[in-house]
């Protein structure tokens, strides 16, 4: 489903070269829930950006749906991200001038769905994550936990093949974090493929597989404990 082969990423800043990923091999099957862990600066986010086609690796290959990422044009990648991927960012990343409902409906509209259908699906996604009662609030009128749930709704409303999440609970209190994790667990149970970066052991145990990274390499993979 998504496969990474000998993936390397080196940042070049003038004279200084910073090798961040030093050869990563990873396979994620359909329906898997993977947690990527590691200390700060290990390269977790960098790996996630490469896999989710937001960045281009220095070397190595990424195969998504049997397609090589490097063979896709920029606009194909945009289209791919729109229809196949969903993103949850640490800081929610909702558009401030769009209501909760509009934030969720926007990618659906961009996919060419009609207005009625888009809003209907968006509303359903909001219900699913438990913020269906505040569809017309602006992000600034929602709590952090509610905003993160709206952002999850935006990521799943179009039934993406893969859901990417980079520390989705880092900014949330314990209760909201658990609520978010509960949503992920429920999505996973229904077959959603999830790749999540997290710092917290407690949440990582929700995942079926924990991939530990250190210094740009995978140091361990713990499956289905």
């Amino acid at each position, binding site marked *: 489903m998504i496969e990474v082969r000998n993936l390397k990423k080196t940042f070049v800043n003038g004279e200084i070269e910073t090798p961040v990923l030093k050869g990563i091999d990873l396979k994620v099957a359909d329906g898997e829930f993977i947690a990527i862990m590691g200390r700060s600066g290990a390269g977790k986010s960098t790996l996630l950006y490469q896999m989710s086609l937001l960045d281009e690796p220095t070397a190595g290959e990424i195969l998504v749906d049997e397609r090589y990422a490097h063979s896709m044009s920029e606009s194909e990648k945009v289209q791919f991200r*729109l*229809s196949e991927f969903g993103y949850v960012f640490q800081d929610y990343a909702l558009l401030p001038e769009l209501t909760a409902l509009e934030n969720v409906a926007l990618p659906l509209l961009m996919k060419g769905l009609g207005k009625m259908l888009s809003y209907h699906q968006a509303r359903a996604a909001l219900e699913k994550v438990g913020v269906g009662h505040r569809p017309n609030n602006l992000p600034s009128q929602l709590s952090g936990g509610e905003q993160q749930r709206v952002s999850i709704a935006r990521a799943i409303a179009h039934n993406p093949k893969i859901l990417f999440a980079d520390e989705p609970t880092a900014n949330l209190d314990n209760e909201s974090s658990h609520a978010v994790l509960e949503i992920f667990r429920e999505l996973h149970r229904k077959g959603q493929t999830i790749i999540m970066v997290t710092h917290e052991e407690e949440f990582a145990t929700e995942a079926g597989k924990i991939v530990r990274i250190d210094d740009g390499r995978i140091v361990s993979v713990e499956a289905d404990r």
Partner: protein
Amino acid sequence: MFPLNIRIGFFLAVRALRRASLWTTGLIIFVMVLTFLNLVVISGILVGLLQGAVDAVRTEYTSDVIVSTLSDKSYIENSPNIIAIAASLPDVEGLTARYAEASRLEAGYQTRKASDKPNIANAYVIGIDPREEDAVTGIAADIIEGEFLAPGDYDKIVLGNYLLDQYIPIDTPGLATLDNVGVGSKIRVHVGDVTREVTVKGILKSKVDEIALRAFMVDSQFRSIIGRNDGNVDEIAIKVEEGVDPRDVRDALLLRGVGEEAKVQTFEDAQPQAFKDIIATFNMLGAMFSSIGLVVASITIFIVIFVNALTRRKFIGILKGIGINGRAIEISYVFQSIFYAVIGSAVGLALVYGFLVPYFVANPIDFPFSDGILVAPLEQTFFRVGLLVTSTIIAGYIPAWMIIRKNTLDSILGRN
């Protein structure tokens, strides 16, 4: 239906505008209104100053078509015939025939000592039929003191204001004026060898030199002063019916051979070349000022959109990250720019046509040589609206494009 990117762009633009600060939006629109006014009003007033003068010459002096003496003749030969031809044309509403003779006016002779400087002024004295003249040019309304001539007036004269010292706005060397003359004063008119003493009946005030520097008497008496009995006059001003093109009347007269004995011109033909040159110059000046205004408005919009897109760069990155087409985001900024330009122009249009144009018609700018109005032909104004909107679109598109084309991930993470 519209392409998807346009629909999404519109969706984003409407929401961005709806949630924008009222102050900012108001300020930007205010700048657009000022630009619009700058674009339309500056050149409109410059041209309007001249247009006021052109209009005044047409109503008070030449009327729509003017028949005048050939340059090598001292009067229009065969005048009665020409007048008859002109009067018989169906498109002619009325005409006035004028005798004109260079004369010297003298005042203060009653008390003058031999050593005193003579109190004289040079003027064309015009012999008119007061009723016909007023019907065509309406100059009786320009009387500021005393009364206009009436048929049958004898030894009465009406003076243009530039002949009188007290009505000359500035001291003009070389222009001799009559001192101490008002309504009721007795003055002498010297035409050739003939001298007549007449009484000042009224004073005309006009910004048209041809009126302000002339003196008027009733034609029947003036004919005898200049000794002309054949009915040949010096100029004929013809007013055409409403909606008739003066050129048609000119051509009709020329067709009937009037051109053999007189110069036939429309009011436009008769305008001095200087007038046309000044109008062209003012138009150019107006265009220059307008271009500066246009550049200022474009820069304003550029900065507004640039700052807006820059502060929202992270969100632009996220939009692109989750798969929103960069084109759609660019279009959302173009829509915002169009909104500012269109609202600004709409307010400007309302101000110009709802307030300024009628205001200047009611209260013309008092200029020495004209009553300035605001000239804003609709066609030209809408061309300028188009210009403003176009330059705003470009000024909004460029910064949006500059920021949207940046790397998506860099934008999300706030990296350069």
